[in-house]
């Protein structure tokens, strides 16, 4: 295996590269394959297969979109948080999510996409975001359930991405995961306070877990035999584990946590399987999953409408910033969206 430094020269394709031809491409492809096989990182200026680039743009953009849309269900409770401490925690969390969106759009931009173009695809429904954010936050306990289960599932998915073959994405994931684990613990702690609180608070916590458990399991995507992109993503080391494998891992983590929370998980078939060394669990309603993905979930319309409205109503602000920047080009740097 060649050293990283040797790859660096060999695999870098000049942007102006007209030389090429099929032979050169094959040589680049060999270097790409060797880099991936050696568990080294592909960087923005390296040659990469078009399909690898396209898959990453799609995945990173959808990840970024999920952070941005994911602000809504939680922001729904900022103005109603029941104590100032909880309000501060929730605001900090939603702020972190906007920050994660920014890291991820930057990572996608290293692949030649622009934030504006990606947002446009989100707004027009041509790119998706995580199906989980199409569920409503009906009570305060939902904020805790999202922290514990939704962020927990996200972390289970994202920790392996810290070793993803594409460097900018892997590095973004390192930062995102640190903050996510903090949120997850806060969500758990919120639920614990409710679970140990008054009977009404306990019931509120249980109801939230009952509603968020199955949608959280769906976050790992379709079962392995129906997952369209899995095999290729695993070969490229974008993905490190299969959907079902990560889902199993998540269930095994959650069961003892639910027990120490004093809450139950809404699955009568959930039990430890000594032989497999994992929990068995009930069947996921894939029809619901597909409906939500198609846009027929409880909040799909509402989420995208709010996002579009924020963008449209902010157009004059972005125009003003751009006009000001153009007039004062030597002045302060401003956003030119």
């Amino acid at each position, binding site marked *: 295996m060649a050293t990283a430094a040797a790859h660096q020269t060999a695999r870098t394709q000049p942007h102006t590269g007209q030389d090429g031809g099929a032979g050169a491409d094959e040589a680049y492809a060999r270097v790409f394959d060797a880099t991936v096989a050696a568990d080294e990182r592909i960087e923005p200026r390296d040659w990469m297969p078009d399909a690898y680039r396209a898959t990453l743009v799609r995945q990173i953009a959808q990840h970024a979109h999920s952070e*941005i849309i994911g*602000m*809504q269900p939680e*922001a729904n409770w*900022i*103005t*109603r*948080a*029941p*104590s*100032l*401490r*909880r*309000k*501060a925690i929730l*605001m*900090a969390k*939603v*702020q972190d999510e*906007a*920050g994660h*969106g*920014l890291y991820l*759009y930057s990572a996608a931009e290293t692949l030649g996409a622009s934030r504006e173009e990606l947002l446009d695809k989100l707004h027009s429904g041509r790119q998706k975001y995580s199906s989980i954010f199409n569920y409503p936050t009906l009570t*305060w306990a939902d904020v805790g359930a999202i922290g514990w289960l939704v962020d927990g599932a996200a972390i289970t998915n994202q920790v392996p991405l810290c070793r993803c073959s594409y460097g900018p994405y892997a590095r973004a994931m390192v930062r995102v995961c640190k903050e996510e684990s903090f949120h997850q613990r806060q969500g758990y702690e*919120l639920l614990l*306070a*409710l679970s140990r*609180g*008054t009977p*009404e*608070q306990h019931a509120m916590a249980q109801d939230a877990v009952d509603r968020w458990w199955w949608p959280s399991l769906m976050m790992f995507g379709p079962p392995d035999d129906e997952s369209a992109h899995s095999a290729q993503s695993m070969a490229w080391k974008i993905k490190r584990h299969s959907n079902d494998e990560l889902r199993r891992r998540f269930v095994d983590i959650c069961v003892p946590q639910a027990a120490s929370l004093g809450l139950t998980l809404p699955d009568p078939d959930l039990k430890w399987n000594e032989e497999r060394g994992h929990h068995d669990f009930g069947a996921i309603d894939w029809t619901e999953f597909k409906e939500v993905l198609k846009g027929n979930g409880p909040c799909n319309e509402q989420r995208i409408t*709010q996002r579009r*409205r*924020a*963008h449209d*109503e*902010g*157009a*004059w*602000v*972005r*125009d*003003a*910033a*751009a*006009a*000001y*920047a153009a*007039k*004062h080009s030597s002045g*302060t740097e*401003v*956003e030119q*969206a």
Partner: protein
Amino acid sequence: MTTTTHTHSAALALGDDALVLSHRLGEWMGHAPVLEEEVALANIALDLLGQARILLSMAGDEDELAYLREERAFRNLQLVEQPNGDFAHTIVRQLYFSTYQHLMYARLASVEGPFAGLAAKAVKEVAYHRDHAEQWTLRLGDGTEESHERMQRACTALWRFTGEMFAPLDGLDLDRSELESAWLESVRSMLERAGLAVPEGSRTGAWSAGAGREGLHTESFGRMLAEMQHLHRSHPGASW
């Protein structure tokens, strides 16, 4: 004892300002014109909430004070309870208030007193808030025709709430007229730099000079409190 009572009433007033404005900024989350502003507005809201928690704790129990007082017992300025409106209204409200807060905390930090510690911490935060508001005042005031118009409208609409910042406040030992002229000078020069006309109207409402400090608020405030307090009030005695 009287000193303590006075300190409490000043802490309550300043704490309510920070609490209420933080809440209003929290309403922006998920609605900002660019992602960078989602981050910035949340950041400012969090700073203010942090200040509110310290100040309210000086006056009593923070949650009891935030969640169990009724509208007439709140001592915040009417300026900070004004609805967000468009982004220009939010920015002008920030400009007027953060300029006041920055001047005030800089002065409180420089003398001994019950607020010196808080002021030393807060002055750094509000310097950032003020810078944020000033940068946007320039961009919007000197941006497009539309942004200029919106800014001008916001400057004028909120002008009449700016006088109450300089009404006497029990327990706060500051030269108010000096503070007021420093504020006027700063805001005027900022508006001029942004190409905006300094509003000419009165700086107090027809009936409401300093009224927020007396617990007389504007109509939208009660609705804001209803939303803020509902869950806490629905579970008396619960801890969260």
